[in-house]
């Protein structure tokens, strides 16, 4: 009798396959993946404060290293050949050098691209970078799903009757969610980076089309799961193509103002895609990570929706910010009187103030005024003025974006406050200094039920003794296209200029 057993070295240690999903489980390997998952939990936990965050990031790297090394060790390319003969058993292992070097080269290429991008990217461009990264996770999920479909044996998915139905459902879901993440993120990237207009593209009957495609994907997944081995290829191809199409269709009707929600939502999807693949492979690290990332993206989407007083459904349905002729943007606005001031006026009053609250918006980042603003803060503090920064959740183009931009300009994070923490302090503030923000200080959100931003939480700048409003000109309006009563208040002084230039002039006037 002569048996020939072909396997990778560590698989030999494993218990025989008894399960319907995943590979034969070697307890040590399973433990390693579990530890990796725990490190990922610690990586997110540490982000509760900037002080612990750097260590947290290292935990994440350690977790990833454990997962990758474990996989490399258990899946060394090459074959162990064991010959059970009538004589003594012979074992030898042959490493497949070609494949090993291909894998290492693939990692090196990815590492080089990743590291160079991470080093070069401007902090203002962080939303498009994150969108681009999401698209890569999505595409990787599609590729892994397809690889598992083409080579189920390597993933331990092969049973006597082909791939088990459960595995096929998981595989189909992983591919579908991955494909939606990919094409959706590509559109989000194009919109955020200005390669595509931020205004919504509205197809007629888009809701019917979208629901139809989603239903078709679900039906195809079910058919794919039930089909015999010979019938699956057209089904999985159709499934993949439709999922790519729906990702595209879902994001094109969503306008630029809603991109913070979209980026968070795609963040969530990339997590669910990883989780679905984790189910297919029976891999704990992937499942834990997928669940963490999925919840994280979902919570961030919720926070962003709440900050804009928009329901998640209405964001997904899209169309917000479409120029449909209605609303305040259509009609010419009446000319109302406002006070205009100069940098010298502003500097004089800032010097006299005891407490100044600065409200930066995305316009400040566009004008690259954050460094000048920090200089102004330093000068004022030397003169004994208390300066605080107030950040609205939607101040940037993604959650927490404004905080990063201020941190880059070396603004001390102890001076930066969230909306709910600082809003009561405006009553004691001598100056509310609005730079590059508009909708987030618009009182119409509190009073005008017909306003598109009604119900959105806003800063109570009208309670401050003085309001300085830096704006390029009186013409422009915020994302939502509505007029702002703050411009015309008695205590408001409009500083009409480029934000960076104006702040630099104020700094000069302060000296």
């Amino acid at each position, binding site marked *: 009798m002569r048996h020939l057993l072909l396997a990778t070295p560590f698989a030999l240690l494993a218990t025989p396959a008894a399960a319907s*999903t*995943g590979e034969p489980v070697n307890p040590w390997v399973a433990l390693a993946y579990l530890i990796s998952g725990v490190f990922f*939990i610690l*990586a*997110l*936990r540490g982000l509760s404060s*900037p002080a612990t*965050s750097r260590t947290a*990031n290292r935990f*994440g*790297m350690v977790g*990833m290293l454990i997962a990758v090394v474990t*996989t490399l060790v258990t*899946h*060394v*390319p*090459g074959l162990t050949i064991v010959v059970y003969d009538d004589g003594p058993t012979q074992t030898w292992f042959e490493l497949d050098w070609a494949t090993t070097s291909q*894998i290492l080269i*693939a*990692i090196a290429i*990815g590492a080089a*691209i*990743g*590291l160079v991008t*991470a080093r070069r990217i401007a902090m203002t461009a962080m939303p498009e970078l*994150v969108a681009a*990264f999401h698209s*890569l*996770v999505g*595409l*990787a999920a599609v*590729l*892994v799903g*397809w*690889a598992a479909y083409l080579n189920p*044996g*390597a*993933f331990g998915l092969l049973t006597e009757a082909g791939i088990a139905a*459960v595995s096929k459902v998981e595989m189909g879901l992983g591919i579908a969610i991955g494909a939606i993440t990919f094409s959706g993120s590509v559109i989000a990237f194009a919109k955020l980076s200005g390669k595509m207009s931020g205004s919504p593209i509205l197809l007629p009957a888009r809701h019917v089309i979208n629901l139809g495609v989603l239903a078709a994907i679900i039906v195809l997944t079910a058919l794919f799961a039930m089909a015999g081995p010979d019938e699956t290829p057209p089904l999985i191809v159709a499934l993949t193509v439709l999922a790519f199409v729906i990702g595209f269709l879902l994001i094109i009707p969503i306008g630029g103002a809603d991109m913070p929600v979209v980026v968070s939502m795609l*963040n969530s999807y*990339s997590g669910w*895609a*990883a989780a679905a693949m984790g189910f297919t492979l*029976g*891999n704990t690290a992937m*499942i834990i*990570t*997928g669940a*963490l*990332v999925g919840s994280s*993206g979902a919570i*961030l989407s919720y926070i962003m929706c709440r900050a804009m007083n928009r329901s998640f459904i209405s964001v997904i349905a899209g169309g917000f910010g479409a120029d449909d002729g209605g609303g305040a943007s259509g009609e010419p606005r009446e000319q109302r009187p406002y006070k205009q001031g100069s940098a010298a006026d502003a500097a004089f009053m800032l010097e006299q103030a005891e407490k100044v609250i600065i409200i930066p918006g995305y316009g400040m980042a566009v004008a690259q005024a954050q460094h000048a603003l920090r200089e102004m803060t330093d000068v004022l503090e030397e003169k004994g003025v208390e300066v605080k920064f107030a950040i609205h959740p939607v101040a940037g183009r*993604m*959650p*927490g974006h404004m905080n*990063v931009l201020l*941190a880059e300009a*070396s603004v001390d*994070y102890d001076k930066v406050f*969230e909306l709910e923490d600082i809003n009561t302090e405006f009553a004691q503030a001598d100056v509310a200094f609005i730079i590059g923000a508009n909708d987030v200080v618009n009182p119409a959100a509190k009073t005008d039920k017909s306003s598109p931003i009604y119900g959105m939480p806003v800063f109570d700048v009208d309670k401050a003794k003085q309001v300085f409003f830096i704006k390029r000109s009186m013409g422009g309006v915020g994302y939502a296209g509505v007029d702002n009563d703050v411009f015309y208040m008695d205590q408001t002084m409009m500083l009409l200029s480029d934000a960076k230039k104006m702040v630099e002039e104020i700094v000069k006037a302060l000296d």
Partner: protein
Amino acid sequence: MDFISILSIFVLACFVGYYVVWSVTPALHTPLMAVTNAISSVIIVGALIAAAAADVPGAKWLGLLGIVLASVNIFGGFAVTARMLAMYKKKEKK
């Protein structure tokens, strides 16, 4: 592992994720997204398995491409997170 064990891990991890993410300070939401992005590339595990198996060339090449994409994310994601976190400083009091 059987389906129910995997599902249990998944459901519990969702709860862990929920509580952990709510405790993240809003000031670090952008780094949070960058780092979640990096860790979701643990999907590289699947790509490594596919690439290491020599018997189906199609799956192997998909795996290799998957490794490249996931590596971009892993290295890029952790590096850009580290770069951002290094900026969050308390000023030295003079």
